[in-house]
């Protein structure tokens, strides 16, 4: 039962262009959606989040869009930089006596110089 799905295992983008990473979910009860970035041999690091009552959140080069009717969110990185090359995990959180988080399988982003 995959409640959070990232259907693209990898994405390759030219430096300076936009990277768009996609995520679909099935549970309407999630309270927050988050993106984490992971470099090899390191733990994931929190990147950006969005509340379920919002449809957009922006932080510098990173913007997350939430489409609740489609149960879809996306992460936009503009402009993409070689240092953005990493695995990006989409995650969804619900609060039931504590925040419970479910992660997608990840998308590996390659930014070519």
């Amino acid at each position, binding site marked *: 039962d995959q409640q959070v799905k990232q259907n693209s*295992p990898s994405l390759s983008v030219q430096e300076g262009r936009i990277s768009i990473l996609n995520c679909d979910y099935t549970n309407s009860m999630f309270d927050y959606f*988050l993106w984490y970035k992971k470099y090899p041999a390191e*733990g994931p690091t929190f990147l950006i989040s969005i509340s379920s009552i919002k449809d957009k959140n922006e932080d510098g080069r990173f913007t997350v869009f939430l489409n609740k009717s489609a149960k879809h969110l996306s992460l936009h990185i503009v402009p993409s930089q070689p240092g953005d090359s990493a695995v990006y*995990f989409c995650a969804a959180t619900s609060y039931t*006596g504590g925040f*419970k*988080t479910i992660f997608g399988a990840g998308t590996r982003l390659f930014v070519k110089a």
Partner: protein
Amino acid sequence: EAGVAQSPRYKIIEKRQSVAFWCNPISGHATLYWYQQILGQGPKLLIQFQNNGVVDDSQLPKDRFSAERLKGVDSTLKIQPAKLEDSAVYLCASSSVHEQYFGPGTRLTVT
């Protein structure tokens, strides 16, 4: 602010042996998580603590895995006996609100 600390970083054991991992969360974070991450997959929650108490251990294989959180701070995760399919990265994370902060992980190889 110090991050989440984990040790060891790497461990190689034979099947049927036991192993233990240690985690020290960020100071003041009430919630602590242990995840298992198999190559090519996202982190899968094994157990979640809120202070000393267990909030969720529904996906913890309790016949071989155990975890405790000492005085609501440090935590240990133990596997006894290990199986080949336990080879994975074990991640510890802590949080005060919805975003989690992860340690570097322990890569376990079971041969």
